[in-house]
């Protein structure tokens, strides 16, 4: 099959270029296998991966215009286009720079917890939120959702995007978190999201149901007096 790669070395190239590689296909081949084969047999392609199991989040790429995790995505025996994940600075070929997004997510995920948890507190848990916490745990921070989000694309500084909003939702549900996650959600663009559900469509973790969490946050925000703005 022919695969067109969008390649770019900012230190060497004036602009991204296309390279077409002929790659042998086999049954149940993955996008990652195709990239690796092209790198070994066609020309050097910079790409990143680690776990091959959709938990490290490092192998996000665009396949035919859609963001995917290369490691677990099957590739069909036809022509394809593989490009770096959209919306982030390209470091080299398919490797993009997620460090700013990750630093921000790490800060939001860090629990606000003023005193050490005691054994009694640890063993007290709101089971109503248990399933949602359990689901969001699986987020690999791959940023595939944020890459496809139309609200984030239209207002990159107005809506932080689903991956980061998941961090807020996680600690919103966490019974041990003392932060004001409702205010955080509103400030980060809770009402700018258009609830289209594309994030859930592309998310490699079947457990994560983004809109359920956004609805919970919206209800909490409305109850707190941060209702949906009239002009949104």
């Amino acid at each position, binding site marked *: 099959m022919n695969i067109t790669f969008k390649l770019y070395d900012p230190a060497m190239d004036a602009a991204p270029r296309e390279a077409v590689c002929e790659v042998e296909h086999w049954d149940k081949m993955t996008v990652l296998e195709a990239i690796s084969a092209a790198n070994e047999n066609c020309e050097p392609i*910079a790409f990143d991966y680690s776990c*091959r*199991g959709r*938990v*490290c989040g490092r192998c996000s790429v665009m396949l035919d215009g859609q963001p995917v995790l290369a490691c677990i995505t099957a590739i069909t025996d036809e022509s394809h286009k593989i490009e770096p994940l959209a919306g982030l600075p390209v470091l080299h070929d398919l490797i993009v720079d997620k460090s700013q997004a990750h630093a921000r997510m790490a800060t939001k995920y860090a629990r606000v*917890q003023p005193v050490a948890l005691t054994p009694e507190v640890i063993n007290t*848990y709101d089971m109503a939120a248990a399933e949602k916490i359990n689901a969001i745990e699986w987020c690999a921070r791959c940023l595939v959702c944020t890459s496809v989000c139309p609200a984030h694309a239209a207002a990159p500084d107005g809506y932080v995007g689903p991956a980061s909003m998941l961090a807020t939702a996680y600690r919103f549900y966490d019974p041990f978190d003392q932060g004001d996650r409702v205010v955080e959600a509103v400030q980060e663009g809770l009402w700018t999201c258009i609830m289209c559900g594309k994030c859930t469509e592309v998310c490699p973790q079947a457990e994560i149901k983004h809109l359920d969490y956004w609805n919970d946050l919206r209800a909490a925000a409305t109850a707190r007096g941060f209702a949906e703005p009239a002009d949104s």
Partner: protein
Amino acid sequence: MDDKEIRVGHDQEESVGLSRRAFLKGGGALAGVAMLAGAGLGLTGCAPEDGTEGGDGAAALDAHYTVYDTDLLIIGGGFGALSAAYQAIKSGKTVTLVDKGPYGFSGGCGMNWDVIYTWCPSVDMLPKQATFKRLTNQEAAKEAYLTDPNADALGMLMNQGQTAPRRNEDGTVKLTIDYPQIKGLEGCFPRHSQDKLAQSQMITIHDRVMLTEVLVNDGVCLGAMGVHLPSGEMRVYRANATILAAGSNGWVYGWSTVAAHSFGSPDNTSDIEVAAYRHGAPLGDCEYGSYDLITTYPTGIAYAFNSGLGADANEWEYILDKDGKKMLANATQDDIDRFQYDRPFFNQTLAKEIAAGRGTASGGVLIDLSAPETVASFRECYARSIDLFKDNFGIDVTTQPLEIGFEMYEHGGAPVIDKKMMSAELPGLFCVRGAGVYGESGGTSVNMNNVFGSYATRCALEYLNGFSAPETIDWAPVADEYARLHELRTREASDGLRPPAVRQKIQKACETCLGVLRDKPALEAAAAELARIRTEDLPKMVVGAKTMTYNMDWKQAIENYNMLEIAEASVRATLMREETRGQYLRVDFPEKDDTNWNCMIAVSRAEDGSMAFAKREMPVVTF
């Protein structure tokens, strides 16, 4: 506060006169010495006359690098490093953590996966633990456990931001493993611990930096140096104490399209372990590994714990041979009980059956998932892959037996350390998973990394109390390393081999003999092949593109030298150990031989560069 010094073409003689090195670096700034050009000076082929050692033309390169100064340097960002870092940030010393991957943390701990965190509930239980008895460095282990400030593991985890999401109906924490001598909690996702650490003002975290060499002056480790991958810039982390916590190298074992036969990460290539070895620190436990069974098809997700389906000892009944017959039908009740708590026994029992010809063509076994109760008993992290197989690959795991194979998720291979976690041969270097802390169990465990990480920092702090920095630093090793790295990048060869090709030869050689079944003919053939790769293939390894920018070929080329050393050490240590111990079966020596082999095997670099193997015994502790 600027703790960086920028050095360009560092030259200590600059202030006292124009040395050759200063001349060569000066370029246009030294227009006044153009007259010397006629004397045949050029940028290659000069032997430095200022008394430093350097290679031929390579030493004449301008070594551009940035120096970062820190009291404590932590190499790696995984479980051991996290524990070391959490301890270090309490100390008031400057702490820098350097990791090879993105996200600030990589390797096994860089994956957001469902870890079962285990711990020993009370030090009284320690002598009863099977794994403790298998350690070789028991002095370090005893001290580490007795002084562990994180003995309340659940409290520690929860206060790092973990939520313990798997609960009983009444909301209490559900322990996955609950015995007097061992407790375990599922659902510990490492990123929570990382996120909290990353907020601390008391630590600087540099990611996407591959450290390739230790900085050594007069036999003392003064930090480490390497490449910032996105830019190709060289960095030196000058440290008074260095804590190596970089994780084990399962990546040598085998190759299947995009992965070794390992759940581990391409990040873990033993770079600083081998750097230490080159500086005289022996490596121990190279022959040992830990293995799990995991699906091997589709090939793109082969041996990947997080997308695969595995068979633990719990699933022993559903393991089939190549003809579809139950593999362990003859297991007695004693055997079945032992499968649960003695993983080496479980692996070796299977290995014996495979050795008898009952395995698949690729040396694996089959697992039958047609019974609903099998799937119902799966851990959540396996069960969630059932839909992945169906939705992404059209495979219904309940209607056909799946092939599973052994993957090496842990590997020994680490510098030998004393009871204070330090290399005696390279003082200043502390190793969280130093040889002997897990011994024949092969590698280490999440919990042990946690115990030893904290202990390594405390030992390093003790060392710092008595430490005084040298009066001058000899930076020549930095120029040497710069030259070595850039020679690798710019090398040309008419019949060159790209680094992935060389890497796979190493991995394929190990595939034949570093699994759960190891025999002499395969080991000897692999040793010969590795020797051939060293003399024939490595010298003509050429990177496909010369760029400095996140150059994955260059990265792999550098790593390949270290992969080869670990591979050879592992193969030859196995050959030396003429018995069966640990998780593999030595086919030609199927019994354990405590009389001759109740010891560690350590490998040192001899004067001529070859490997020298020796037995090393360590004291057995009492409580």
